């Protein structure tokens, strides 16, 4: 039995100082009194120095504000101050005022002026299109945003900015985990030289090959996972097909060779259990190795994907030699089970 850790009986003192507790004073009335000294982060003006209330210090009113106040005194309907000011309308026909406009608005005015040459090609026209596919003839531009609402609804639960999501969250709700985890793992294992899009194309071709191949016939000597769907369901659900093939041949353990543990220069074989991702990884590596040994009968980009798909079908049908490999590992693991050193119980 190891002795209990006792903090009070340290051999030397530890530089440990409890943090002083920050506590609000009970009487908060103190804080109401304004500070007399000016802090940097505080507002720059003291109340006494505020001269904005004086009549002469006020800035000149905005055009529409002035018009509104004028209209108010005259008892008429002035411009609506909640809207922006239509500067274009104000300066329309006033050449002197137009000269003082900002450059952007001047350019806009110029471009709206009637063109002298009606057949002139539009400036800066590219040879290629930078827009997305236009729905032919339909002038109304629908950007296709799903359920776009300009005004967010006020949630009923107080304290929430948006509505409560409906639980459970959808599986593909997160943008980074929207695909099936096995498909994603296999895609990454297929990837060479960091070319993910090539790997993704290969993955799509594998699944396409699985869904167009005939229904597999299951070999009873090589049972698949218990609870597997009937083989007639597999081609219509290629992802399930892939997962079933991989999980069925995935080894339960790997054999670690510990050198010098057995004595006499022989490595000690120690079986080590694998986690689910590791098991799948081992199976995919075997499948890829067996696929690269297959004869390439075609040509072109999709031949590797086709061979992997053929290997997956062979696994499900029990004709692949990966099964023998898996059985050998399991047999070795069972034989070497005495070498497992479990941690001592306390």
């Amino acid at each position, binding site marked *: 039995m190891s002795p209990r850790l006792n903090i009070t009986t340290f051999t030397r003192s530890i530089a440990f100082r409890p943090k002083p507790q920050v506590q609000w004073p009970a009487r908060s009335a103190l804080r109401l009194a304004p500070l007399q000294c000016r802090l940097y982060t505080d507002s720059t003006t003291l109340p006494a120095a505020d001269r904005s209330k004086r009549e002469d210090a006020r800035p000149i009113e905005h055009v529409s504000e002035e018009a509104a106040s004028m209209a108010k005194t005259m008892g008429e309907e002035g411009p609506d101050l909640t809207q922006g000011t239509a500067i274009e309308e104000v300066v329309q026909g006033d050449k002197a005022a137009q000269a003082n406009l900002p450059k952007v608005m001047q350019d806009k005015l110029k471009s709206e002026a009637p063109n002298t040459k009606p057949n002139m090609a539009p400036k800066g026209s590219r040879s290629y299109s930078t827009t997305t596919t236009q729905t032919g003839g339909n002038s109304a531009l*629908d950007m*296709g945003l799903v359920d776009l609402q300009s005004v967010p609804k006020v949630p009923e639960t107080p304290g929430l900015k948006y509505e409560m999501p409906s639980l459970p969250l959808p599986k593909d709700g997160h943008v980074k985990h929207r695909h099936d985890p096995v498909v994603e793992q296999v895609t990454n294992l297929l990837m060479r030289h960091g070319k993910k899009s090539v790997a993704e194309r290969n993955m799509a071709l594998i699944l396409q090959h699985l869904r167009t191949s005939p229904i597999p016939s299951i070999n009873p000597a090589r049972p698949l996972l218990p609870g597997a769907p009937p083989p007639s369901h597999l081609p219509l659900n290629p992802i399930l097909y892939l997962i079933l093939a991989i999980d069925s041949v995935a080894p339960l353990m790997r054999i670690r060779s510990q050198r010098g543990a057995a004595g006499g220069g022989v490595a000690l074989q120690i079986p080590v259990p694998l986690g689910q991702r590791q098991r799948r990884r081992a199976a995919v590596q075997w499948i890829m190795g067996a696929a690269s040994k297959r004869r390439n009968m075609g040509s072109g980009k999709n031949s590797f994907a086709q061979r992997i798909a053929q290997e997956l079908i062979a696994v499900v049908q029990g004709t692949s030699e990966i099964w023998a490999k898996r059985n050998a590992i399991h047999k070795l693991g069972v034989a070497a089970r005495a070498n497992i050193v479990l941690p001592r119980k306390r």
Partner: protein
Amino acid sequence: MPPSPCLRSFSRLSLDASTHNFLAPRLLHPRVACFSTSTARPAAAPKKKGSTAAPKKGVKSLNTKKGKKSPGGDAGKRPAQGDRKALRKRIVLSNDNALEVSSLTDLDKANVLSDANEGKVMGLPAEKVVDALRAVDAFKTTQGWSLFRRPAVLMRKEAMQLASLFREVEDSATGPQKRTIRRILSGERMSGKSTLLLQGMSMAFLRDWFVISLPEAQDIVNAHTDYAPLPNSQPMQYTQDTYTANLLQQMLKSNVTFFESAKLTTTPDLPLPLPAKARLADLVALGMANPEASWPVFVALWNELSQPGRPPILLAVDGLSHIMRHSAYMSAEVKPIHAHDLTLIRHFVDHLSGQKKLPNGGLVLGATSQSNAPTSPALDFCIEVAQARQKTSDNVPQWNPYKNVDVRVMDALKDLNSDSKDFDVIKVGGLSKEEARSIMEYYAESGMLRHQVNEGFVSEKWSLAGMGNIGELEKVSVRLRL
């Protein structure tokens, strides 16, 4: 004139080694056989096998190989010649795993041109249309026919446009003025231009038109087939005998019903004798069997089709920009031959440009390609102009004067910049959401799309597909492309 090395050897003949043997030692004048340009080389004595001396003890050899490696790769039998390409180009039109769509109705002669099937997915009848389309190579490997139970097409808005053109031509067939309508299909990549062409061809087959299709324009101009100058042509034109013979075969296979009944009414001028009481099919078979006579046979067949009472004609070509430039063939003066100087293409372009009319009326369709298209600035410009004119006729783009203009292409397509209704561009755009929903329901019913097709799902995929680009829509919803 003989080649220069021979001349040089000949001139050296007088300076034979024996004449100035005394001037220089023999070493400087190796005995060279005249008329040989290869360097003199003493014949190496044949080495005995395995006689190389073993390296001395203690001397390191440069050979770093540890042992004999096993021969890499598999040494098994290779696929036979042509098998790999056949596998790559294989067209699969059915998937036994896909579910039968119960609501799928077939196109037939009565309903193919009706407006009622707008936005619906319609099946292609197997024996009449699918075999004919297969014979003319209308199906492409990149299209997703292999995923579904049997070929079916979406009757989208552009297809209905095409159907109305078919109706116009057929309505004018009874009157004195037979109409020839010409259209260029253009649009974004994977927007369904080739499939629309296929839909046009299936309409023509169902309506008993005569279809002549050049399935891939690249194959005509890339100099992979033989060519020969056409005698008595000014300027020089070139025939492609093997290609034309193959085209005749495709025409014979695809237009079965026409050739069953068609009789020969004229006496064609052919280099080979025709059997007595020959039918039109015998004429075509003659051209197929004798490629050197294939072009005269084609001309004779065209004359037959021009007789009154023959069916309207659909001329179709895919990959238009290949034939709007110089071909890869060379003339006798080692100048590139313009594609319009190849007889087959000239025949097509004459009808596309409106220089010649189809005598019994008909339709000329050319589809552009975005994935396999060499630059053809004149074609691009003409399409751009036509599209600008469809919107407003006063702001058409101008030709960039710093670009090289292909005058022949400009001449052929100049009608696009006029008010004529006969020659125009059909812009193949994105699907509308209703059309997208219709085809996605078809995907789901086939079992290829495992999701509930509802409003949100359709608009999500529709926007992911670049506002309804049908190829992208298929990619994101059916092909499981991550």
